[in-house]
């Protein structure tokens, strides 16, 4: 009973945050084009439904990588680490999976994409583990290392693509992966499509969303049902007490960051193991936004793997909805501002709520401490 109540109070906080974010977005809609503002808000809220089942499929498609990066950031949070490096881990995972997808054509059909996906996960894992190693062994703060590693990943990949036969110099991007390396559709294109005459106009959704949800469930079990999860959370809550209880803090930090990196790596693999019409790694100087959106997803989802599935879907939903704002003559740039504002205002209002709660608690603790100062340490 209590558990339900607790989960609900967490959820209602997230919902309130989302409402606050939407209101903030509405203000910008009003400012930039007052006449269409209400319809605009409705368009955002409709999300994928603006384009029927195909639109819903697009929501799932956009949700896939940000659920994964949300899991990555949320998992690291549980061990008390702020993984701002999900974007770098994502790109490393994406690059390695594309490399495998292009070159390891000797692998038989079904195995090819699975191996490519796993290699991507391993690459992200290694990239995340570097952060954990620096933190555990040299006490270098994870935010610093992971930000630097983001840029190292970005330029390293640009370099590696340019010098290798992965480079499509005409389009300034990576070449297509082999057809066997593309994430299969798993029949989802038979659900998420619209009919244009007799033509099935299917969405880009693929098995990636199922993989992401499956991994989220796995993370839930890992965190809540196993001794390993018990240790990671204990370290996150109180590393001194964890040490005292004989938990190896360093091991927890390193494995937690490795797993977080692996999750982001999967995000990259799922993004770039795409057909010719899908996403490619562009050789440009921009960090993948999916990595940073993972932070908002994790915050809104209270770092809970199950919550992250829903917040990932929500953010994808309004992102897709935002795309349809163009039909109301909102400019593309302003749409990005609005969607970005909704996402970050939501996450931010959650932070503010936490700050208020914490301030209240502090005041209460202070009052208690005044009553029994002998308990001060």
């Amino acid at each position, binding site marked *: 009973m209590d558990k339900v109540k607790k989960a609900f109070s967490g959820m209602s906080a997230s919902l309130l945050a989302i409402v606050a974010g939407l209101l903030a977005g509405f203000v910008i809609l009003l400012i930039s084009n007052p006449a269409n503002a209400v319809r605009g808000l409705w368009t955002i809220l409709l999300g994928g439904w603006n384009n029927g089942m195909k639109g819903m499929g697009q929501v799932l498609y956009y949700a896939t990588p940000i659920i994964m990066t949300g899991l990555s950031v949320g998992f690291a949070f549980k061990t008390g680490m702020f993984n701002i490096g999900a974007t770098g881990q994502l790109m490393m995972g994406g690059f390695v999976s594309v490399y495998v997808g292009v070159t390891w054509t000797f692998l038989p059909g079904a195995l090819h994409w699975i191996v490519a996906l796993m290699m991507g996960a391993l690459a992200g894992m290694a990239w995340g583990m570097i952060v954990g190693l620096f933190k555990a062994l040299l006490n270098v703060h994870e935010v610093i290392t992971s930000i630097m590693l983001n840029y190292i990943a970005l330029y390293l990949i640009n370099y590696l693509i340019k010098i290798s036969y992965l480079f499509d110099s005409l389009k300034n991007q990576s070449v297509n992966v082999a057809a066997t390396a593309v994430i299969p559709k798993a029949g989802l294109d038979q659900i998420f499509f619209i009919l244009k005459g007799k033509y099935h106009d299917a969405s880009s959704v693929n098995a990636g969303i199922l993989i992401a949800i499956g991994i989220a469930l796995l993370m839930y079990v890992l965190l809540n049902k*196993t*001794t390993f999860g018990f240790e990671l959370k204990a370290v996150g809550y109180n590393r001194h007490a964890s*040490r005292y*209880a004989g938990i190896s803090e360093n091991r927890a930090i390193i494995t937690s960051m490795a797993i977080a990196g692996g999750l982001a790596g999967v995000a990259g693999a799922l993004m770039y193991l795409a057909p010719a019409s899908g996403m490619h790694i562009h050789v440009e100087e921009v960090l993948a936004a999916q990595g940073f959106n993972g932070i908002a997803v994790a915050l809104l989802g209270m770092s809970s793997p199950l919550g992250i599935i829903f917040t990932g879907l929500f953010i994808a939903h309004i992102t897709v909805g935002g795309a349809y704002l163009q039909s109301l003559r909102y400019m593309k740039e302003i749409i990005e501002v609005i969607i970005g504002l909704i996402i970050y205002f939501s996450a931010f209002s959650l932070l503010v709520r936490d700050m208020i709660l914490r301030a209240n608690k502090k005041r209460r603790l202070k009052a208690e401490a005044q009553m029994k100062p002998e*308990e001060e*340490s």
Partner: protein
Amino acid sequence: MSEYIIEMLGITKDFPGIRANDNITLQLRRGEIHALLGENGAGKSTLMSILFGLYQAEKGQIRKDGKQVQVNNPNDANALGIGMVHQHFKLVHNFTVLENIVLGVETTSHGVLKMDQAREKVMSLSKRYGLLIDPDALIEDITVGMQQRVEILKMLYRDNEILIFDEPTAVLTPQEIEELMRIMRGLAQEGKSLLFITHKLAEIMAVADRCTVLRKGRYVGTVDVQDSSPAQLAEMMVGRKVDFNINKQPATPGAPALEVRKLTVDGRGGKKAVDRVSFTVRKGEIVCVAGIDGNGQSELVYALTGLIPSQGDILLNGQPIEKLHIRRRNDLGLSHIPEDRHKHGLVLDYDLQQNLSLKRYYTGQMQRHGFIRFDAVREYARKLIAQYDIRSGQGEDTPVRSMSGGNQQKAIVAREIDIAPEVLIAVQPTRGLDVGAMLYIHEQLVRVRDEGKAVLLISLELDEVFQLADRILVIYEGRMVAEMDAKTATPQELGLYMAGSKKEDRHRG
């Protein structure tokens, strides 16, 4: 003129969810030493904070010389001649004694400090009240006792008439306590009025004229100390008759359980926090390490339990453990009631059952193939809760953060004793607890001893040392300076060792 210099009448103060002071009356006579007695959480500090202007009361009034006054902040209190020596001194460590005394009320001329006048006044006050100080010494270089004298001089320098002492003896050796008592009597004779907050009965009997007792935020009564007895005061404080003596048979020490040889821990600035310490704790005895706070006790315990690295040998039942990981030491039977229960003892965001299983969750009893057996964890928690009478709002599901300090400590004690340790290291196990919880934990420690286990107790409270110890070791500046039989040791002798003014040669072997 009114008989009372300060009166607090009908004071009521609420904090969210708790009434800290409920209609409390305290009347301080001119020139008396008035003790304020109560357990932790009885509301003493709240009441003094109201008098000092840190809090405002919801109801009630404060009178000075019979006239009602408003105390809205510490400056008001100061203007009324109220001064306070806090339990944790408020001194600037890299300033001199003189600078600290005048800090905030400096005499200046055209913006330039004029210290000569101040120095003269301080020295004459020092002489008049017998408060020996060196005005030019840095605070960080002087003893705690002298720091306290500086705090007292700060009040006198501001011509305070009403002097509040908040648990002033907690940090002092027995000799320093006697000195403080002498100073307090002198101040009263000179016409100052003293309020003395404490929970130590012996000190009240020794120095106070009258005593006001609080219990759970309520006023119990005010008595003349002359006509009272420690037993009566204790009963007023606790609300029932208390027998402070626990039933303890003489120890029957067996084989060595914990042997420490030349243990050294590096401290700050090239000093040794623990310096070549050697001792043995045998099965079936309680060995107590006595000493003033900050003389290496914490580092000693951290080294023994593996929280920090050390040099030297540590043997547990003959097996060297100094190189082993904390988990291995625990599994071999080393158990630890830590000094800081919030930092080390508990994961406050975990619930009670998770905390009770903190040292067992990985055992076959509580996990299978890496999956936690939640039923086993719950069952175990219920057993400990019943056996050790741990009280909480929602039983084993209670977030530990919401539990009272006493019950948090009981949970740690239960966890650490129930793993059936070979050696139990208990660091200030009763700090901040009320008399009931304290007695209970003392009994548990004796029970562990009587079951033939070794107990190493680290305590700052001499009462506790004499209550429990079979053998006493004294630590001073990281060295063991004395070893005494608890039956023959006296507080005075112990105090001399604790202050470092007496040393045994313990580095023979």
